[in-house]
């Protein structure tokens, strides 16, 4: 076979072309249907419902236009929940990523038993968030919790049921704990992918371990870091519901009521479906904006 048998495209992309439209349609159908059923339909419903106020008995509802939104934006509790969410998601993201990176760096330094550490460090990820919540709740339970008891012995009176800061701390730790495993895996894989010779070149250039870490390794990890940043923020926003519900139920005094939890408590507990729906819509917009911002401003810098 000669070299000229097939024309080489300048960029060797694998591109498949279909003749008809039926097969491609079938291939994308599952994705489209799932998105439609579980995303577009509920999102549409939320937008629709956010324009109504149901009567106290839930028998009828009245069209109110944007009144729900107007009310929300003027509501100090709702604005407080925004701040809570910002603090909570920042803390969760940091608490989930920094220890993970540190552990990954340490495991990467090991020559021999890195595999063992890796396996052990993955385990927390297998624990469901709500279960993790219960676990941490038991440890910090004001009456029977092990950690709370030890803190008491040290003269510290732990009470996350009353103390807002402690409540926030506990839900942050409980939320971040399992994520450390997840982040660790990504950081570890990324570290292993950093070419040895680049590290060696930096060592010969005179950089010691931590200097190398900050000037060479960390920049090379930035695509992974960025990816994890997005994923962890989304996690902190949406997937920490179970943890908060089991540990604090949003309390004390709404101190741990993040936006998602407020959607739940106003909608299902308070039965204010219109407001709840409006909150969902706002949440959707906020996360959408955040993601767009992240991609627009950070992504450009992380690819070298």
């Amino acid at each position, binding site marked *: 076979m000669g070299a000229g048998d097939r024309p080489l495209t300048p960029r060797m992309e694998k591109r498949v072309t279909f003749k008809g439209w039926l097969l491609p349609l079938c291939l994308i159908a599952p994705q489209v249907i799932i998105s439609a059923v579980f995303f577009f339909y509920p999102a549409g419903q939320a937008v629709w419902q956010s324009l109504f106020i149901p009567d106290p008995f839930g028998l009828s509802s009245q069209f109110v236009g944007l009144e729900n939104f107007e009310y929300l934006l003027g509501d100090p509790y709702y604005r407080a929940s925004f701040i809570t969410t910002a603090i909570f998601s920042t803390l969760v993201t940091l608490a989930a990523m920094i220890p993970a990176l540190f552990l990954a760096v340490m495991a990467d330094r090991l020559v021999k038993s890195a595999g063992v550490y890796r396996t052990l460090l993955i385990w927390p990820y297998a624990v469901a968030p709500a279960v993790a919540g219960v676990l941490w709740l038991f440890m910090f339970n004001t009456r029977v919790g092990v950690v709370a008891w030890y803190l008491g012995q040290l003269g510290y009176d732990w009470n996350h049921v009353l103390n807002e800061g402690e409540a926030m701390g506990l839900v942050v730790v409980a939320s971040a704990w399992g994520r450390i495993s997840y982040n660790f895996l990504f950081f570890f894989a990324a570290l292993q992918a950093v*070419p040895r*010779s*680049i590290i*060696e*070149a*930096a*060592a*010969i*250039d*005179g*950089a*010691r371990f931590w*200097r190398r870490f900050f*000037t*060479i390794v960390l*920049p*090379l990890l*930035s695509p992974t870091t960025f990816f994890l940043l997005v994923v962890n923020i989304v996690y902190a926003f949406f997937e920490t519901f179970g943890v908060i519900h089991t540990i604090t139920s949003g309390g004390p005094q709404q101190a741990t009521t993040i936006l998602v939890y407020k959607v739940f408590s106003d909608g299902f507990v308070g039965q204010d479906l219109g407001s709840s729906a409006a909150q969902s819509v706002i949440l959707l917009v906020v996360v959408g904006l955040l993601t767009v911002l992240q991609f627009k401003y950070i992504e450009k810098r992380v690819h*070298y």
Partner: protein
Amino acid sequence: MATVELDNIKKRFGPTEVIKGVSVDVEDGEFIVIVGPSGCGKSTLLRMVAGLETITEGELRIGGTRANDLEPMDRDIAMVFQNYALYPHMSVAQNMGYGLRIAGLPKAEIAAKVQGAAKLLQLAELLDRKPKQLSGGQRQRVAMGRAIVREPKVFLFDEPLSNLDAKLRVQMRLEIRELQAKLGITALYVTHDQVEAMTMADRMIVMNEGIAEQIGTPLDVYERPASLFAAQFIGSPSMNVVRAEGRDGALHVGDMGLPNPTGVSGPVMLGLRPEHLVPDAQGPITMQVMLTEPLGANTLLHGKLPDGSAFTASLSGVHRVGHGGEALRLSVAAEHMHLFDATSGARMDGD
């Protein structure tokens, strides 16, 4: 600028000994090429000098002081890697200036040195590019630039040209050599290419399975190979080696009788470089030519001796010898006959 002394250096990875005791004194400003086949331990030896591998046994001295336990950053060396190992997130200028920045030099001074090196290596136009926007040859230059801006005591090169095409390789070979001579910095250069070794080295270390078979100038190694391995590794096409026996004042190869200048007796290995053979109707060597390769300036004849061993001759000029097993008489000057011990492979003429 410094001497590098290796004193019976050994390296073991677990139970396997990869470097089995190498000693060499490299003089200040000398260009040493470490050459040998794949897996013989060249990189390992170089990496021990760099401090990237620990030295299992023996002593390494750089500039007269023991360096065994120094970290790479404390040895004042620079290394050019086979894959260049450029920092992908830094521009060319940042790559070259990294070591100086770590050393804490003022910005202006770094910029000046980088500019100087860039001019020397014709990189001035490319200083703002990232490594991935460069061609292989340009990356190679950046790696060189990164090594020279620091003005280290010793340069280490691990097959820096093996990713380049043949023409660029020849050009870069010269450039590296010129640059090193101009800067006067001691260099250790690893390659598996014997042409590179011959053309670049002040002295070369021919390595085989963790042993330095011979240390000497290229011409030394070519003219007086210390072992069968060195004899066959250096020179292209490689030396013919045939079994011979010294008996009755002659050297017998099969039933051919060659002169026996040193008067050895008993079985030996006889080495004859293809280019030292000359056609001679009365010559003692009879070769059956199976294949000719006319290269223009010379002609390679491949075939075999009457005893069946493969044999190659390289004759100057054009020779129209038939392919089909035509016999050709050859002779060789006595000073071009290399004798090696039949068991150890060591060179025999003891003078």
